[in-house]
């Protein structure tokens, strides 16, 4: 029987390619807490997002991230299961206790629970849920929980998982059925993954609509008596009813993760198309990319690792879709023939394409969308410019733009300041060529 330390070593190592961040916590005290607003709870998501440590690759380590078990019925080609001889599982109590210890040491902010599929998706999920239930109701932990759903899990378990977690994710791994079949042929792309992602959206929306109604009633009768009655009613049905019906669930939404570069010929465009679909269809909050790294003893051991620069460019382009709200078709012109992104910052490429045959941008006249096209101007500085213009302010100097947060080094070639362009585009082509400061991504 392996010790808890041994389990953390092996199961932690097995989960190291999973990406997560507690900075995604729902930082709001606006709503009543998911599990009621009493002092006996421990933990807080409203002020989460603090990184308590960083690994030597610079990634923040703020969650207790291990697999629940590494025994798996699948054999995805890129996965450690082929080579890892030591198979083990936590027990729910052991998992919850270990996490609480770490939380009391102020070294983690929350939980990221993931697992291999031991026996069946439902059986493993049941056990994972038991660990989270213990955390929520024995140890009273109210902080951040990211629950990784297993492919093919039943809907009733998804419902339970949603009601206990702040964030849920199902790894898509590849952008389409064919690519997934190439690297994990036992998984059914549409049924095991896409359908589950759609369920997550439906369950969340339905609950939150009802929660809104409860909140309305609550606001109308916001008395202690009413509050007491609600809590008592919930207690009668055990912990399940102890939860506030009025609290929105899954505040940090659903996310997904892709293995980049494992499937032959899967392009950046394929991946971004899937993500774009996710933002539109399943309320995807964000996507994570994990560069493929060959593991000794797996069928893909001989394959070349994917470059970290590629991963970085995907994050940059995803940022344009997610934060700038660009449409994927706006970005199409920067992909090469194979559908991959060129080296360098995608926004710089986009700007050099866009401004080839267009006038430069005058910050005193440009629309919000035009401003956003200029490298070095993001949504915040663009909004500041528009706000100041509304107050009749005229941008005449470089300094004016700098003080609202514009990165002049990048922006200048595309701007007309006081009627003049400060420099030539050519001077900046070296910026485009490759100034990727790798890895400063997640």
């Amino acid at each position, binding site marked *: 029987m392996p010790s808890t330390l041994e389990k953390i070593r092996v199961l932690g190592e097995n989960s190291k390619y999973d990406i997560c961040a507690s900075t995604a916590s729902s930082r709001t005290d606006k709503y009543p807490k998911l599990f009621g607003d009493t002092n006996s709870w421990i933990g807080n998501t409203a002020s989460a997002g603090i*990184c308590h440590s960083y690994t030597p690759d610079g990634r923040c380590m703020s969650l207790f991230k291990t697999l629940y078990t590494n025994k798996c019925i699948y054999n995805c080609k890129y996965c450690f299961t082929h080579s890892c001889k030591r198979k083990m599982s936590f027990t729910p109590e052991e998992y919850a206790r270990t996490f609480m210890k770490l939380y009391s040491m102020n070294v983690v902010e929350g939980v990221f629970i993931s697992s291999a599929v031991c026996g069946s998706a439902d059986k493993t999920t049941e056990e994972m849920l038991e660990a989270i239930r213990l955390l929520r109701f024995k140890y009273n932990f109210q902080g951040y929980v990211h629950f990784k759903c297993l492919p093919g899990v039943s809907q009733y378990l998804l419902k339970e998982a949603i009601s206990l977690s702040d964030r849920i994710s199902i790894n898509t791994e590849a952008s389409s059925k064919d690519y997934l079949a190439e690297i994990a042929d036992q998984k059914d792309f549409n049924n095991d993954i896409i359908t589950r992602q759609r369920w997550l959206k439906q369950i969340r929306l339905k609950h939150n609509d009802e929660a809104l109604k409860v909140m309305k009633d609550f606001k109308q009768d916001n008395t202690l008596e009413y509050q007491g009655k609600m809590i008592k009613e919930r207690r009668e049905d055990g912990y399940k009813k102890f939860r506030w019906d009025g609290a929105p669930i899954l505040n940090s939404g659903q996310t997904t993760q892709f293995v980049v570069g494992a499937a032959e010929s899967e392009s950046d465009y394929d991946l971004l198309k899937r993500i774009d679909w996710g933002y539109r269809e399943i309320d995807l909050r964000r996507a994570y990319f994990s560069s493929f790294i060959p593991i000794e003893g797996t069928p893909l051991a001989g394959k070349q690792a994917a470059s970290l620069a590629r991963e970085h460019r995907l994050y940059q382009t995803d940022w344009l879709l997610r934060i700038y709200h660009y449409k994927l078709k706006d970005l199409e012109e920067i992909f090469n023939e194979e559908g991959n992104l060129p080296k360098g910052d995608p926004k710089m490429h986009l700007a050099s394409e866009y401004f080839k045959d267009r006038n430069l941008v005058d910050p005193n006249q440009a629309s919000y969308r035009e401003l956003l096209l200029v490298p070095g101007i993001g949504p915040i500085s663009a909004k500041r410019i528009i706000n*100041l213009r509304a107050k009749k302010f005229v941008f005449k100097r470089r300094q004016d733009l700098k003080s609202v947060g514009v990165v002049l080094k990048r922006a200048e070639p595309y701007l007309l300041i006081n009627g003049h362009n400060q420099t030539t585009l050519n001077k900046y082509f070296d910026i485009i060529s490759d100034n990727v400061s*790798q890895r400063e991504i997640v």
Partner: protein
Amino acid sequence: MRKLIEEKDPMEVVGCARGHSCEELIHNLPRHCKFYPALIQHINKIPEVILRNSGTPIAKKVNRMMREISKESYRAMQFTRTEINNRGVLFGIVSLKHKVMDRVLNYFHKRWPECIICLYNEHTHKTSTIDEKGIIHKIDSPLKTVVEKASKNRPLIPYFDDIQFSGKEIFETLYSSQFISERENQKYFKKMIPEKCYELPGMRSGIEKRFRNKKINDYF
């Protein structure tokens, strides 16, 4: 400076989009260890837009001070390592130059609302506590005495009793397990945990230091 105030239309000092408001400055600057009261009088005379413009010398100065204050409290929240006893008393050591103990205590209080939090400040040699009601006390005794006193009349709490084992090794094992050697990036690592963080009480014997100072193979 006076010339600037008189001649410029405040809207032309575009820094109004950034920096801190006058109230924020007045409220927070006294936390700085090098604060002097005349600074507030000075700030009161200057329009906010100038204070917000990162280009003016006074703004540079107050922004630096504000940055130092918030950095110190944030680092303390990140890197203070605590313990909890089975009576629900959470305790640890901090090293705070500026007056940000209340912020740090409140951070822990939000996470452990039913516990008493005791933090010993190495810099002032004083222990500060925050109780369940959020009331802060400053005590002139060493941490151990304060924790003992605070625990005295409190009942044993089973779920805290459950976690009375050493967690140091657990964290070290978890930390080592997360490292992907193919992605090692010492430069980024050093940026995220700068040298001076290793001087904080919680980090002095932290595992991060071993990874920073040695190659991973040496470590194993």
